[in-house]
């Protein structure tokens, strides 16, 4: 198991050091600093073995978090734990920075004592932790016996992510379907790979211990129901572009509140949600993705000192919808000396420090087209190595889900309190963003 946990600043000074196992000595702290933080070359692996001791590290801004062990630990678990540790710290004091860590070192030690026992991760749900570890010292002195046992049963219980007795005057929930669409396209316009990774984020303000059931247009579920005979009127579509009814989900993962065995057997998603905001599920699709934009690049080398670049972008969704925050990034060679750009829409600038032409368009409706052309002047060099031609990348935001996912329902049942599914106010929003959206040129 994890033998120790260290946090360093960018210079390699220790900010937090907690040792859990006898086999980890003080020298381990220095070994990591010397061999990894102060190492000359780029990090070649997130796992390093130094003198039979293994170091796992992640970086958050310029802070290094390292877990140390001498045993054959579950490596995936260690990284998951380090990420979780970051989440917990962020939930307590915001951004992970040297200053915040120094300001909260007592709190961090206290958290480390609670969420890692002898190197075994324990309950690390912020909701539960905040009931008994707070920034204003520890509660507990003045708690009643009932309160204490409520805390312990929540920390160890089956529903560790929610406490009993939550009350809201207005029962309300918000669902955000957030998708990032990834694309790698060849210069000829052939899709090399495309996938959508999506998240359903829920904000719930519900009283009691509500039992929820979430439904979406998952192909497997729809097909199963389709056999029953009831079909919604086909062709009806609220989304841009596509008229398909159901989507094939390659894979999905759920927050720990979802009953996985039920999903496995019936493919129904049922759960008791945590209070407030959390990520209900993640999913991935690769079939029938609506690619909101197409990028058509044209690069011509005119002699050794000049490049001509022309890029056309086409929006490919319903004309009534608007895409926002569009940005196209066209890389330029390192020996660029000057750039002239002409674009029909938006603003374009050559940014020498980033070696790229950045073209920004605030809004663009569906089924439109726009183009930019640029002349790039190059300094003559005797560098034999060819320019690697990084791909043209793109950023945008669209108000629909490129995967075609639709929320069909989210039902809420709370048998003990007297509010019904109808009384709950529900909001659903779809946002599609660009992930790594690249076209090679």
């Amino acid at each position, binding site marked *: 198991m994890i033998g120790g946990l260290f946090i360093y600043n960018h210079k390699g000074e220790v900010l937090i050091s907690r040792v859990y196992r006898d086999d980890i000595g003080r020298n381990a702290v220095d070994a990591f600093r010397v061999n990894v933080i102060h190492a000359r070359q780029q990090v070649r692996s997130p796992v390093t073995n130094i003198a039979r001791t*293994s170091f796992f590290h992640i970086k958050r801004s310029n802070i290094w978090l390292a877990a140390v062990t001498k045993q054959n630990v579950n490596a*995936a678990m260690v990284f998951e734990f380090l990420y979780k540790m970051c989440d917990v710290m962020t939930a307590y004091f915001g951004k992970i920075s040297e200053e915040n860590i120094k300001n909260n070192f007592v709190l961090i030690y206290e958290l480390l004592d609670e969420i890692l026992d002898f190197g075994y991760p324990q309950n690390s749900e912020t909701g539960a932790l905040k009931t008994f570890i707070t920034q204003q010292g520890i509660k507990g002195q003045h708690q009643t016996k009932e309160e204490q046992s409520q805390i312990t049963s929540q920390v160890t219980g089956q529903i560790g992510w929610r406490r009993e007795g939550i009350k809201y005057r207005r029962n309300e929930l918000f669902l955000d379907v957030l998708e990032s669409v990834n694309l790698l396209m060849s210069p000829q316009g052939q899709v090399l790979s495309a996938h959508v990774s999506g998240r359903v984020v829920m904000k719930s303000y519900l009283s009691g211990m509500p039992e929820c059931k979430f439904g979406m247009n998952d192909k497997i579920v729809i097909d199963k129901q389709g056999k029953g005979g009831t079909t919604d009127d086909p062709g009806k579509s609220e989304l841009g572009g596509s008229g398909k009814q159901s989507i094939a989900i390659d894979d999905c993962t759920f927050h720990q509140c979802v009953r996985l065995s039920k999903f496995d057997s019936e493919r129904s998603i049922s759960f008791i949600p945590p209070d407030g905001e959390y990520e209900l599920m993640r999913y991935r699709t690769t079939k029938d993705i609506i690619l909101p934009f197409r990028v058509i690049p044209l690069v011509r080398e005119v002699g050794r000192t000049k490049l001509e670049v022309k890029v056309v972008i086409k929006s490919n969704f319903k004309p009534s919808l608007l895409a926002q925050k569009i940005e196209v990034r066209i890389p330029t060679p390192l020996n660029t000396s000057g750039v002239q750009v002409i674009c029909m829409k938006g603003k374009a600038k050559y940014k020498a420090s980033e070696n790229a032409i950045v073209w920004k368009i605030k809004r663009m409706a569906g089924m439109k087209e726009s183009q930019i052309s640029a002349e790039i002047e190059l300094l003559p060099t005797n560098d034999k190595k060819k320019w690697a031609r990084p791909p043209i990348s793109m950023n945008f935001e669209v108000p629909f889900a490129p995967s075609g996912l639709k929320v069909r329902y989210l039902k809420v049942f709370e048998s003990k309190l007297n509010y019904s599914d109808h009384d709950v106010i529900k909001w659903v929003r779809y946002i599609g963003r660009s992930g790594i959206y690249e076209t090679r040129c």
Partner: protein
Amino acid sequence: MTDSKYFTTTKKGEIFELKAELNSDKKEKKKEAVKKVIASMTVGKDVSALFPDVVNCMQTDNLELKKLVYLYLMNYAKSQPDMAIMAVNTFVKDCEDPNPLIRALAVRTMGCIRVDKITEYLCEPLRKCLKDEDPYVRKTAAVCVAKLHDINAQLVEDQGFLDTLKDLISDSNPMVVANAVAALSEIAESHPNSNLLDLNPQTINKLLTALNECTEWGQIFILDCLANYMPRDDRESQSICERVTPRLSHANSAVVLSAVKVLMKFMEMLPKDLDYYGTLLKKLAPPLVTLLSAEPELQYVALRNINLIVQKRPEILKHEMKVFFVKYNDPIYVKLEKLDIMIRLASQANIAQVLAELKEYATEVDVDFVRKAVRAIGRCAIKVEQSAERCVSTLLDLIQTKVNYVVQEAIVVIKDIFRKYPNKYESVIATLCENLDSLDEPEARAAMIWIVGEYAERIDNADELLESFLEGFHDESTQVQLQLLTAIVKLFLKKPTETQELVQQVLSLATQDSDNPDLRDRGYIYWRLLSTDPVAAKEVVLAEKPLISEETDLIEPTLLEELICHIGTLASVYHKPPSAFVEGSRGVQHKRIPARAGSGESAESSDVGQSGPSEAPPAVIPSQGDLLGDLLNLDLAPPTATVPSVQPSMQMGAMDLLGGGLDSLMGDDSDTLGGDIGGSPSMGAGLGAAPAAMPASLGAAPAVGGGLGDLFDLGGGVGMPTGSYVAPKTVWLLAMKGKGLEISGTFARRGGIIQMDLTLTNKAMSVMTDFAIQFNRNSFGLAPAGPLQVLTPLSPNQTIDVSLPLSTSGPVMKMEPLNNLQVAVKNNIDVFYFSCQYPLSLLFVEDGKMDRQVFLATWKDIPNENEAHFQIKDIHLNSDVASNKLQGSNIFTIAKRTVEGQDMLYQSVKLTNGIWVLAEMRIQTGNPNYTLSIRCRAPEVCQFVYLCYELVLKN
């Protein structure tokens, strides 16, 4: 309030000031002071001098202050054990506190204080906390047992904590169950022979129930524990799989990977024609792909594991090639791993896409990545024949870029392509030759030289090219030197007239001026071959080369199996067994995948020995292995340092040169005689090439083989066997534990029959009758061959000797240690259990003398990692007496040779279950310490075989 100010105090007299503050009356000031102390501790300053003052602050009702003091205690208690005692009282008191959070805190901290005196006081509170009404306290106490075990294992056993811990597996709270499982698993790891984690269908069921309810971390503990279970049959295996598959949708990647581990392992037991088997295969792909959208560090762990999974079951991900395409912004470690997997998944169906990608990668910036991409193109050519042509043209394009390292890498892989598809792409040689000057890496130079030598007849200026390399011969690396030597000899055989001078030059450089034995020996061999029989030389040096294998750098199957059992862990990231990087006994246990159903009984025995030597692939040693086999026994002096005359007498010459030269050939598989390229591990063909090159010389020089024949058989058959050694009896069951029955005994092998000699003594007051004996399942299936023959009742104070014949046909189960035997003896009073350990020599069968050729083949065929080395100290026997003695215990000496006063004995042993053990024993005259090297397909027996050697030799 900010705490960062505590980090800034660096003035002198600090300790003194702190001391004063710690003893202040004001609570706030005290707390501030303790915070300063902790901050100093973090930075690495020694604040142990403040120990008594800090501990004084412990008695407080302020929880925050208390926690800080505990933190300090955990750090310094070990250095101040006497003063740490001062804290005990508070701990004990806190364990009784009405607040469960405080009870848990106390027991958690106490377990972290590694001071014997404190540990003593820990026992009582711990016992209470294990039965606490509050689950939070119980889950903390469960982990505390593991802590205590780490400090004092004996104490934990004596206090009966292990049983309490086992009871917690049935606890109503899932988190308590999870922590108990984690603690038990850890304790069991350092106690391999205990039946601690006695997993049976009932406990498995409990674990599977808790799995649905506990935290993400708890799920990992439980899944990792489940993975160690061996289901009884395929039905149980399937039902566990069914209950584990839902975990594949968990958001935590570690839960997913641990579930994958369980499934990969248990799947092995399912019949392949089962529908469920197919379903399971399909279910595994999506979650594995999803892991690739996690954070980069987790992606890396996932990719290292996918690399293993793809090798074990390529069908799972064969359609998922695209997800392994490298993204521009991936960290380099992710890029390199993805590339590796792409090549493994490359097939005719997707090769076009893969090649297009690889070509793209070859223009990237990172040197390592580009090299690997170029190498990958070559591997594709070898793997998918249809793509070879396209690969070659891609490589030529890359060579045109003139980027130095790209060119070198391309040449190395083109050499492999030439070997795979001879006489197909030689047209590109001209292009390659243009780049001769830019090659500065040994591997690339060696590859180029090999190409020139191999195709010397088509390259007009081959002699000039090679001569240019020869100028700086001594500055080249061995790899290049060896290659140059071979290439020039090839050239000479092809164009003898113009290159005589060149070959003389290289031979004398290799034999006279070099102190590298490999180079010298190869030089001598060529020299003699050329001078005695050029026709034979041609047949040897220009012999047809065996094809190179398609799949390169695959992980060796037994290691792969073990790594599959470690999916998700560090071992799977390093691709090394835990024993390679973990100290001590932890994790040294080798894990195995369960065998498929239907193989029945043999399934379990194959657990120990994967395969007998008879299964050695015949291709490795062709029939002519005779010659090589015999050479092993050669008892010849090493070659003399004098310059060999150009025409020595044939017989002598041959011996002289073979005596020294072939030794290296046996030992190292990267060096081959037949003239193919050395030092190219990615080819994986070197080993096969050596014997294949030899047969040609056999026919041409029969005298060599014949002359050597007489020299064998030195060690075998000398003297009469002296009988096997029998250890004196030891007490196995104390009268105290046996209600008056004392049993002592030993094991013996007499005339091929295994016997257990027992002495039963009745130390009780009443007569004992109705004796019976039974064994638990054990590693080699030992079982009583008949009933225990105690005919007359055993009266008080009477002793009786019995001999129980044993068979080896009983049920098999791997034990820890391997030679452990659990015995139950019954009489009219009760049933008694004890365990004893038998010497492995019990199982050495009489027909364990291996054929010499088979020995040689087997020795080479067993991977190097399986070799274990031992020292046997203080033996004053000469080699003949020793080998005689060993033969008495069925350790057979097959061959003996003497090199520089050192006797080498080659020995074989066969176990009752068909496992062969091969050994090499070196005895230096005058040195009482023998060196023993043991190779076996089941490496776990090596240690025990060594013990037998020691036992036999010392008695």
